[in-house]
């Protein structure tokens, strides 16, 4: 009898062990298949595009989709890479517009834990069912029933108790996960992924910095270093409103020292980022008067001609002038790429 009991205890232990191995293999597999960091810019761009969902087609990544929206996203990825943004910053910039929906790999623990939990529960139910079947098949004939029969039932009960325990624990963990407060909750739809949370923390810090600078500004409105810091804080912001505020601060700074070309350069960048081509042109005219030999002048003229007015020949002319004036400038690769795009347009 005790032999049968041992025989019955073994499958329960085996099933639980098998279950644990399966869970461990799933987790290890998920960790191992993460792609390695790609090398060239084209590879990087493709890797980023492959992780983004195409907005206007079903079930394709931006890398694989032929639609206009996907092409525009690929163009923007390339532009942001050229401007020195990291893959993470670029992905975050799309999440900030579309939400975590745009990520093909879902962020947060919920999307991974739920199928994992469901599989574990399914395995436990299967184990219970198998144990019960075995019991029916190996049930001794009724004539044999006696006091000794209690023992296999005990083994059976232990195995079942164990399985139910595992199932209840998993379910309880899932339940608790759903009831946790917002950023940790398994039901949270948005802010669970690391890069986005970091970006939001950085934004909160920036707002605090602006608050602090504005207080100092109220005490001394003519401190150029303070104004410069304030402009930087606004320029680091993501919205058109931030850029307009940066522009106002830079105009104040120009008022304090009209002969310094540096605030002009930052002012023009702000206008270009805000797609305010009229003001960008006016500010570039002012910069040209102040510093006619600055390579920034053809740099901005080229950017405005290409992005703002779509005037490819004028853009090429300005880009060439910039490349000739500043062949060692860090912006050369970006301008080369833009010149190539403009040249393709002319052909």
């Amino acid at each position, binding site marked *: 009898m005790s032999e049968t009991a041992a025989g019955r205890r073994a499958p329960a232990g085996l099933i639980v062990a098998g279950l644990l191995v399966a869970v461990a293999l799933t987790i290890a597999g998920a960790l191992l298949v993460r792609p390695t960091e790609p090398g060239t810019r084209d590879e990087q761009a493709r890797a980023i595009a492959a992780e983004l969902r195409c*907005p*206007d087609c079903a079930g394709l990544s931006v890398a694989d989709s032929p639609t*206009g*929206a996907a*092409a*525009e*996203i690929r*163009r*923007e990825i390339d532009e942001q890479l050229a401007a020195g943004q990291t893959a993470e910053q670029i992905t975050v910039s799309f*999440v*900030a*517009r*579309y*939400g975590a929906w*745009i990520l093909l790999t879902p962020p947060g623990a919920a999307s991974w834990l739920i199928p994992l939990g469901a599989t574990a529960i399914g395995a436990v139910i299967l184990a219970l069912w198998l144990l019960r079947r075995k019991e029916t098949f190996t049930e001794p004939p009724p004539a044999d029933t006696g006091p000794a029969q209690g023992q296999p039932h005990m083994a059976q*009960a232990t195995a*079942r*108790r164990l399985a*139910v*325990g595992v*199932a*209840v624990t998993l*379910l*309880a963990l*899932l*339940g608790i996960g*759903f*009831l946790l407060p917002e950023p940790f909750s398994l*039901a949270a*739809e*948005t802010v669970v992924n690391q890069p986005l949370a970091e970006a939001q923390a950085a934004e909160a810090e920036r707002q605090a910095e602006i608050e602090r600078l504005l207080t100092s500004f109220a005490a001394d409105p003519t401190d150029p270093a303070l104004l410069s810091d304030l402009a930087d804080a606004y320029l680091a912001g*993501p*919205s*058109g*409103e*931030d*850029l*307009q505020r940066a522009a106002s601060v830079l105009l104040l700074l120009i008022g304090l020292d009209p002969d310094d070309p540096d605030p002009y350069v930052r002012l023009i960048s702000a206008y270009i980022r*805000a*797609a*305010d*081509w009229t003001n960008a042109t006016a500010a570039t005219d002012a910069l040209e008067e102040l510093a006619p030999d600055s390579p920034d002048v053809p740099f901005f003229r080229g950017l405005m001609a290409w992005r*703002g007015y779509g005037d490819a020949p004028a853009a090429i002319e300005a880009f060439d002038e910039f490349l000739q004036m500043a062949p060692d400038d860090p912006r050369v690769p970006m301008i080369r790429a833009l010149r190539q795009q403009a040249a393709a347009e002319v052909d």
Partner: protein
Amino acid sequence: MRAARWLVVPLLAVPLGWVLFMSLGRDPSEIPSPLIGQPMPAFSGPGLDGQALSSTSLADGPIIINFWASWCIPACVDEHPVLMDAAARYADEVQLVGILYDDLPTDARDFLVRYGDGGWPHLIDESGAVALSFGVLGPPETFFVDAEGIVRAKHYGPLTTEDMERYLTLVLGEPR
């Protein structure tokens, strides 16, 4: 043992019921967008009437940004009278701006001739960059921006008069 088995039912049912309950009363067309509560993205470009159009040159006050296309049938046709009505009734309080989504200017002009031109400006977003900055999935999609320039709501699909009233209350304040 039996008690433990009965425990499984509420443990399964409670989280599921909670998720379903939280979704009750939500309008499926009112899409959660990360832009809500954020400043409206800036935009500029050629207008359908030949005049340049820029977010910085719009009058102060609430703005309705409507992404649409002449090929978006029937949704854009269905909501067009709602937009026309709002543009006429709230002409002094809110500025409507149309943004073409993946559409040809000639087709868009034909649409306006056929279904009525409410007189609000339309931006030709040829590359799709503006739609991208708003996180648009497909037309029609409408954003409601308050007088401070903050995005208050995003509606996916055709707008009904009731939707319009609800969103306008959000950006204008009290209903009238």
